[in-house]
C-alpha cells in the first residue's frame, strides 16, 4: 500500500497527513502532486547540511531522518548570544529554502522536544538555562523520543502529558514500560547524560572567520588562511602544542564546503609555513559566488616543546627545520608516500630488508650487516638470465642479460638465502625457495648480483637463474 511520506505546508493546510493512504489523499485532493520518496537522497542531503553546519559549531550530529543536533557550548558568544546565533542559522537555512524550527535548551532531549512540539515553523526558540522542566511538562509523552509501542501504551493508560510522568514512582514506570521511558525523561530534564555521535569528533583546535561580504579573490583567501593559521597557532603555542594535520574548509555562499588538508612531518605551529603549504592548494577552490566562512582545524595535536632540547646549536635547529619544511612541501605536492627514508627490517630476503619510514623520523642505530655486500640498484622483479656454468654448484662462466652475453671474469659466492618459509602455507615449502646468490663481474667491469633459485637434484623444479641487482 502506498502512503504519504512527507508533505509541504500547503498540503498540510488541506488536512492531509503523513502516513495517509495515497489513494485517500488523491480522493480528497485530486490535484495533489506526488513524487517518489527517496530516503537515501534525503539522508545524503541531511549529511551535507550537517557538514555545512560545522560553520556554526564543530560538533554537529545527524538526528534521525529530519533533525540535526548542534552542540553550541562555548560557541554562541561568537554571535553575541544563543538567540542571535539561532536566528542567524534560521535565516541562512531559509535563504536556502530549507524550512526549519530551532530550539536551544540545556539538554539534547529537551531541545528535540521543543523544536518539534513548541517552536512554530520558522521560529528559533531559546529556553534559558535550567528552565526546561516547566515548558516540558505540558508536552505529550511522544516528545520524549520514545519507541512507538511504549508511547502508545502510556497514552492508553491516560498518561498523555509529560507532567503526569514526572510525579510517578520510577521503579514502577521501569517495570511496566521498560527502562527507556525513565532514561529519556531523565535525559530531557538533564538528570542523565546522553552521548551524541557527532559527525566529526569535536576538537578544541578549531577556528573560524566569517565575512560580511563573500570573498573570492585568491589573494584574499591566502590572507584569510594566514590570519586563521596565525590565530590557531597562537593558541597552540600558549598551550605548548603542535599539530601534524590541518584542515582548512572554505564554505561557499551556496552552501558547498571545500576542505583542503595539509600534513606536516613533525608537529608544528608555524603560521608562515602553514600558509605557504595552503597557498598552492587554494588555487584549486572554485569560489563561485564567493566564500562566506573559512574554518581551520588542527588534528593530531600533540605536545611540543618550545625549542628542541637535544639540538644545542641554533644553526642545527634551523637546518633541521629547513629540511622538515622541505619534506612537507614535497610530500604535500607529490603525495605522502613519495618522500621516505629507508628503515632496517630484520630479514635476510633482500627485497624485504628495507621498509619506507617517514622521512623525518629517528634513525635506528643498527644498520644492515656490513659483511654482506648488497647492490646499489635492486630490481623490483628479478630478470631471468640464461647461463652457462661448468659445474652445477659453480657460478656461471657466461650469462646473457637484456640480450647481451657477458663473460664472467670474477665471481664470489654463493650466499644462500632461504625464503621465509613461515610466510607460506605448509604445503608450498620446498627447495624451490632457496636462492644462491653470486656476485659476478664481467669483462667490461659491470658487477651484478645473480642468483639460482632451486637445487639441481630436484628433478621436478630445475633451477633457474635470475639477475636481481647491479652493483656500483
Amino acid at each position, binding site marked *: 500500500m502506498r502512503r504519504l511520506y512527507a508533505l509541504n505546508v500547503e498540503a498540510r493546510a488541506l488536512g492531509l497527513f503523513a502516513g495517509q493512504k495515497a489513494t485517500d489523499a488523491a480522493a480528497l485532493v485530486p490535484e495533489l502532486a506526488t513524487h517518489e520518496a527517496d530516503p537515501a537522497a534525503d539522508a545524503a542531503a541531511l549529511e551535507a547540511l550537517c557538514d555545512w553546519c560545522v560553520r556554526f559549531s564543530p560538533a554537529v550530529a545527524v538526528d534521525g531522518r529530519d533533525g540535526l543536533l548542534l552542540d553550541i557550548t562555548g560557541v554562541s558568544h561568537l554571535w553575541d548570544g544563543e538567540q542571535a546565533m539561532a536566528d542567524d542559522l534560521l535565516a541562512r537555512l531559509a535563504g536556502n529554502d530549507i524550512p526549519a524550527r530551532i530550539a536551544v535548551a540545556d539538554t539534547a532531549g529537551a531541545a528535540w522536544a521543543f523544536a518539534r512540539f513548541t517552536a512554530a515553523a520558522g521560529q528559533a526558540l531559546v529556553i534559558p538555562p535550567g528552565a526546561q522542566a516547566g515548558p516540558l511538562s505540558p508536552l505529550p509523552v511522544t516528545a520524549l523520543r520514545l519507541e512507538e509501542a511504549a508511547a502508545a501504551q502510556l497514552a492508553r493508560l491516560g498518561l498523555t502529558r509529560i507532567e503526569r510522568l514526572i510525579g510517578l514512582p520510577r521503579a514502577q514506570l521501569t517495570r511496566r514500560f521498560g527502562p527507556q521511558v525513565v532514561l529519556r525523561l531523565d535525559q530531557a530534564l538533564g538528570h542523565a547524560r546522553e552521548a551524541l555521535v557527532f559527525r566529526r569528533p569535536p576538537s578544541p583546535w578549531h577556528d573560524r572567520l566569517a565575512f560580511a561580504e563573500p570573498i573570492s579573490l585568491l589573494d584574499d583567501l591566502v590572507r584569510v588562511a594566514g590570519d586563521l593559521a596565525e590565530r590557531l597557532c597562537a593558541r597552540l603555542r600558549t598551550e605548548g602544542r603542535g599539530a601534524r594535520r590541518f584542515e582548512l574548509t572554505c564554505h561557499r555562499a551556496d552552501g558547498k564546503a571545500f576542505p583542503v588538508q595539509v600534513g606536516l612531518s613533525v608537529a608544528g605551529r608555524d603560521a608562515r609555513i602553514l600558509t605557504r603549504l595552503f597557498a598552492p592548494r587554494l588555487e584549486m577552490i572554485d569560489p563561485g559566488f564567493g566564500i562566506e566562512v573559512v574554518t581551520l582545524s588542527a588534528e593530531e595535536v600533540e605536545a611540543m616543546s618550545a625549542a628542541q632540547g637535544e639540538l644545542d646549536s641554533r644553526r642545527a635547529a634551523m637546518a633541521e627545520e629547513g629540511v622538515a619544511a622541505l619534506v612537507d612541501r614535497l610530500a604535500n605536492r607529490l603525495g605522502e608516500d613519495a618522500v621516505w627514508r629507508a628503515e632496517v627490517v630484520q630479514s635476510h630476503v633482500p627485497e624485504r630488508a628495507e621498509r619506507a619510514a617517514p622521512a623525518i623520523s629517528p634513525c635506528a642505530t643498527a644498520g644492515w650487516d656490513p659483511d654482506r655486500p648488497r*647492490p646499489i640498484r635492486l630490481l623490483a622483479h628479478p630478470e631471468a638470465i640464461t647461463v652457462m656454468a661448468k659445474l652445477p654448484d659453480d657460478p656461471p662462466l657466461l650469462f646473457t642479460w637484456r640480450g647481451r652475453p657477458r663473460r664472467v671474469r670474477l665471481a664470489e659466492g654463493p650466499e644462500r638465502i632461504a625464503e621465509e618459509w613461515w610466510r607460506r602455507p605448509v604445503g608450498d615449502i620446498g627447495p624451490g625457495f632457496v636462492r644462491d646468490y653470486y656476485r659476478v663481474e664481467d669483462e667490461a667491469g659491470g658487477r651484478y648480483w645473480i642468483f639460482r633459485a632451486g637445487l639441481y637434484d630436484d628433478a621436478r623444479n630445475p633451477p633457474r637463474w635470475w639477475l636481481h641487482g647491479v652493483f656500483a
Partner: protein
Amino acid sequence: MSGSRAARLAVLRDQVAALEAGTRTPSLVQPFGDPRVDDCLPGGGLPLGRWHEIVAEGLETEVGAAAAGFGAMLARPLAATGAVIWVMRRDDLYAPGLESLGFPGRRLIQVRVRDEAQALMALEDALGSAGVAAVLGETEDVDLTAGRRLQLACEKHGATGLILRRRPFGGSARKAATGSAAATRWRVSSAASHPPPGEPGLGPPRWSVALERCRGGRPGTWIFEWNEEADHGPHPLRMVPGLAGDALAAAERVRRIA
C-alpha cells in the same frame, strides 16, 4: 695607445670579476686529496654550491648503477654537514647497497617523482632549502634554463647538486641539450676490479671516470677505487695510478689490431 688599452681591459676585467663575485658566494671545494685530480679542478677540488652532471654510456644510461655509486661517493663527505636528498623517477635505489659503500643510506631522504617537470621542481626546491648539503637527482636531461634555475637554487644555501642523467624507462634516448649550466660533467662507467693478490672474489669497486667539462679547469681521465679505509678522514674515492694508462694502452692495442 696600447698602454691605455691594456689599462682599460684591466679595469673591465676587475669590473667583471666584481660582478661575478656579487652574485656568487665564494666557492668552497671538496678536494679528492690527490693532486693529479685536484689540479684539474678549479680551486683544487669539487666545487661546492654548484651542480654537477654525471653521465653514463650504453645500458648504464638505463640502469645507472655505476653513476649512482660514483655520485653517492662524491656526496658522502657532504653527508656529515647536512641532509642528503635523492630525487628519482624509479625507486630501485637500494639503501643496504649504499650502506655497503659507506654512504649513510638510512639517513638519505628519497623522493619519487612522476615526470621530468616534477623532478626538476623537486630538485630546485631541495637545492634551495636550508640544511640540505647535497641533492642527487636522476633526470633525463637538464636544459639551459632549468640548469640556470638549479644553479640559482644552489647559491641560496650552498647546497651541491649531482645530477645523474638516466633514461627513465627504456625507450629511445632524447637528444642531449646543447648547452649546460653545470659546473662539471663526469662520464662514469664501472671498471674491472682488482682483488688483492691471493684473495678470491671481487675487489673493491672501481670506476673509470672522465672529467669531460669543467669550468675553469682541465679535463682528465682517471680510474677511482672505493677507499675502504676512508671512514671520516680521506675521500672515499682513491685514484688508482697507472691503470688508466693501462686501459688506454689496451684500447690502443685493440685499435692497432683492428
